C-alpha cells in the first residue's frame, strides 16, 4: 500500500497535536486533542476512523483531503473546520460537529457533507466563494445564529436537511444561487429561511416550513422562486420586505396566522397556491405603487447600499435599473389561487372589487401616512380565482 498510515491510539491520555502541517497521508483513530492550529496541506490527506473523537481548542484547516465517517468534532468555542478549495474527495459522513464558532466553513471547492449533526455552534455551516459543496440529509440544531449560511455566489446542493431551533435563522441565503434547494424541513426557528439581496434568485422547491415564527423571509431585492412547498402553522408563512419580487407558486399555505405578508414595495406573483385555514391569507402593509414611484429609488439609495461599515456612504453594486419595480399599477398580483373551500363558496357571485375577509389591503385601509403625506395602499388582484385546489395534498 502506497500510503503510510500513522495511527494515533490516544484513547485515554489527551495529547496535543502540535501546530503543524500534514503534507502526506495520515490516519487518526481514537480520541485526538487539537490544542494548536492544524493544517492539512494541498498534498495532505487525513482519514479519521469511525468512532473517533476530535476534541478541538484550535481550528483545523483542510486544503488537501479530509475523509471522516462517524466522527465527533467538539470543543468550547473552537474555530471549527475550514475546508479551503477541497474537491469531492473531501467528505464528512454521519459526523457530529458541536461547540464551534462556525462548525464548518467551506471556502470554494466541492466537499460532500452528508448525514451530519451540526449542533450548538454559533453558525453551523458557512458556504463561501462559489462553493459547490453538497449538504445533504443533515440535521442543524440549536446553532445560536444560523444553521446553514450560504453566500458569495455559492452554487451548492442543499437537500434533505432538517433545520430546527436555531437562534435566528434556519438557513440564510445571501447573494447566492444554490443549484438545488429542496426537500428540507424547517421547524421551530425564529426565521426558517432568509433569502436576502439582489442576485439571490434560487428555486426553493418542495420544502416544509412548520411552526416557525417566519417560514420564509425575502428581503432587499431578492427574487427567488418559491414553488411547491408546504408552509404550515407558522406565525407568518412568507414575509416579503423591501422590493422583493418572488414567484410564489403551487405552495400549500395552511394554518398560518398570516400566510403571506407583503410590505415596502414588494411585487410578487402569487399564483396557483392553496390557502387553507389561515387566520389571514394575504396582508399588505406600507405597500404603495405611488410611494414606490415617488420615493422608492431615493430610499433604496440610502438604505440598501448606501452605508459603509462605519456609517460613511459606500459603493452601489446594484443599479436601480436592476432592482426597481416595473409595471406599477397599484395592485399585487394574486390571481388564480384557491382560497379554501368555504372561501371559494363565498366568492361565487362576488365581483373583482369585493373586499375579502381573508385579505387585508387598500380596501381595508385605504392609505398610510408618511412625512405628512398620504399614500394609497395597493390592492390585491385576486380575480380570477381557482375553483379547485392546485396542490396534490389538498386535491387528495
Amino acid at each position, binding site marked *: 500500500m502506497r500510503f503510510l498510515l500513522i495511527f494515533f491510539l490516544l484513547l485515554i491520555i489527551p495529547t496535543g497535536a502540535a501546530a503543524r502541517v500534514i503534507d502526506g497521508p495520515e490516519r487518526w483513530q481514537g480520541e485526538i486533542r487539537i490544542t494548536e492550529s492544524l493544517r492539512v496541506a*494541498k498534498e495532505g490527506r487525513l482519514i479519521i476512523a469511525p468512532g473517533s473523537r476530535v476534541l478541538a481548542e484550535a481550528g483545523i484547516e483542510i486544503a488537501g483531503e479530509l475523509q471522516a465517517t462517524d466522527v465527533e468534532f467538539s470543543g468550547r468555542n473552537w474555530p471549527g473546520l475550514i475546508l479551503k478549495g477541497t474537491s469531492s474527495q473531501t467528505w464528512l459522513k454521519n459526523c457530529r460537529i458541536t461547540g464551534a464558532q462556525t462548525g464548518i466553513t467551506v471556502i470554494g471547492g466541492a466537499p460532500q457533507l452528508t448525514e451530519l449533526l451540526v449542533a450548538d455552534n454559533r453558525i453551523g455551516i458557512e458556504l463561501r466563494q462559489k462553493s459547490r459543496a453538497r449538504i445533504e440529509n443533515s440535521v442543524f440544531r440549536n446553532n445560536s445564529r444560523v444553521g446553514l449560511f450560504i453566500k458569495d455566489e455559492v452554487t451548492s446542493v442543499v437537500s434533505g436537511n432538517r433545520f430546527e431551533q436555531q437562534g435566528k435563522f434556519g438557513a440564510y441565503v445571501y447573494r447566492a444561487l444554490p443549484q438545488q434547494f429542496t426537500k428540507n424541513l424547517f421547524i421551530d426557528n425564529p426565521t426558517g429561511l432568509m433569502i436576502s439581496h439582489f442576485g439571490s434568485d434560487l428555486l426553493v422547491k418542495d420544502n416544509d416550513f412548520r411552526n416557525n415564527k417566519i417560514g420564509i423571509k425575502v428581503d432587499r431585492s431578492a427574487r427567488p422562486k418559491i414553488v411547491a412547498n408546504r408552509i404550515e402553522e407558522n406565525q407568518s408563512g412568507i414575509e416579503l420586505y423591501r422590493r422583493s419580487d418572488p414567484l410564489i407558486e403551487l405552495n400549500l399555505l395552511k394554518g398560518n396566522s398570516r400566510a403571506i405578508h407583503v410590505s415596502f414595495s414588494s411585487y410578487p406573483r402569487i399564483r396557483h397556491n392553496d390557502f387553507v385555514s389561515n387566520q389571514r391569507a394575504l396582508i399588505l402593509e406600507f405597500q404603495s405603487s405611488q410611494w414606490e414611484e415617488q420615493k422608492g429609488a431615493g430610499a433604496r439609495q440610502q438604505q440598501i447600499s448606501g452605508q459603509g461599515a*462605519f456609517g460613511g456612504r459606500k459603493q452601489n453594486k446594484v443599479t436601480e435599473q436592476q432592482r426597481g419595480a416595473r409595471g406599477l399599477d397599484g395592485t399585487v398580483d394574486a390571481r388564480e389561487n384557491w382560497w379554501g373551500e368555504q372561501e371559494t363558496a363565498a366568492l361565487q357571485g362576488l365581483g373583482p372589487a369585493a373586499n375579502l375577509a381573508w385579505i387585508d389591503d387598500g380596501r381595508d385601509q385605504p392609505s398610510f401616512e408618511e412625512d405628512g403625506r398620504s399614500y394609497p395602499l395597493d390592492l390585491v388582484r385576486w380575480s380570477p380565482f381557482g375553483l379547485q385546489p392546485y396542490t396534490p395534498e389538498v386535491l387528495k
Partner: protein
Amino acid sequence: MTVFCRLLTLALLLFVQACTSGETGVEGQLLFEQEPLSQARVEFYLKSGNERSSSPFSVATTDISGAFRAALPAGEYYLVGKKKEQGGGVNRMLMAEYPQNPVVVQKGYTAIKTLPLKEVGFEGAISVDGKTSASGQLLFAGEPLADAFIYVYTRGDALTGPAYGQVVRADEQGRFTLKLSAGHYWLAARKRNDGSRVGNPEAGDLNGEYPGNPLVLKSGEQRQLELWTLAPVTSAAKQRRLAEGQFTKTRTWLSGRVIDEEQTPVSGIYLFAYRDSRMIGKPNFISSPTTVDGQFKIYLEKGGEFFVGARSTFGGTLEPGEWVGTYDERSDHRIEARLNEATDLGDILVREVW
C-alpha cells in the same frame, strides 16, 4: 397599530428624511469612439494610482445615453471609466482615467467633461501588437503546475494587488503564453487554494516572481522563458508581510478591549484607524485580531487625529453576521494620539449585523 407597525413607520420616516437632505455627487457622460457608451462602470476612488484601494468607494452605471449620476459625499474623487465587452466575437476591456482627476465635490452635483474610453491592449496600459509574446511553464516540486495565474505588471516596485495590466491562466501542463508588445515587464504568478484570481495569498497558496524580471522584449520577439518554480506561502512569510506597512510595530499605539452588548469580550475583531473622517476605503492602520480577552493594539506611524472603527472582516460591504462597532467616546469616533505614547480607548462595543 402594533409596535411592529410603529417601528416600520419610524424606519420609513428615517429613510425619507435621510434621502431628502442636500445631495452631492458627480454627473457626466462616457463615450467610446465618439458614441455614447451605455452600461459602463464609473468607479470613484479616494486615492490615485498605486495608493488606490482594490475596490472603489462607489460605482455608477451609465444609461443608454452614456450618462451617469452618482451621489457622493463632499470630497475629492479619482474617477475611472470601464466597460468589459464579451461575446459575439468581441472580448475587450474599455477603460480610461479622468484626465482632470481628482474631481472635487462640494455642493450639489459636479459635472465633468465627457470621458472617452479607450480599448486596453491597443491604447491602454499593456498593448498587444500581435507579433510579440513570451511563453513559459510553471512548476511546483518539480512537476508542472496547472491552473495558476500569471500577472503582468508594467512597474516593478510592487508585484502585488490589482495593478497588473494583464493576467493569464496556465493550462493543465502549467504552460502559458503572454501576448505583449515591445517593452519592460515584471511577472508574478500565484495559485490560491480556493482557486480565486485575486486576494491576499494565504499560507499554503503558491506564489513567486519570475526570476528573470524585468522581462525585456523587442518588437516581434517570441521569447521562451526559463522554467519558473513557485513556492508555498508559509505562515512565517505571511506574518512577515503582516508585520510590514500598516501592521508595523511602533512606539505609538491605541489599545483597548472589544466587547459585545452583554459586556463579553469578543475575539477576532480588527480595529481600523482612519485619517479620513468618513472612515471608508482603505484604513491607514489596522490591528491584529483581538485576543480571546478582546484586547487590541493599533500601531500608528505617528500621532495625530484618527477615527476608529472595529469589524470582524476586512473591506467590502457589511455582510450579515459581521461584528461592527466604532469608538464612541466622541460622536465622530475621533481620537487624538500622541507620538511615542500609548492611548487607551477603553471598551469598544460591537454588535452583530443581520
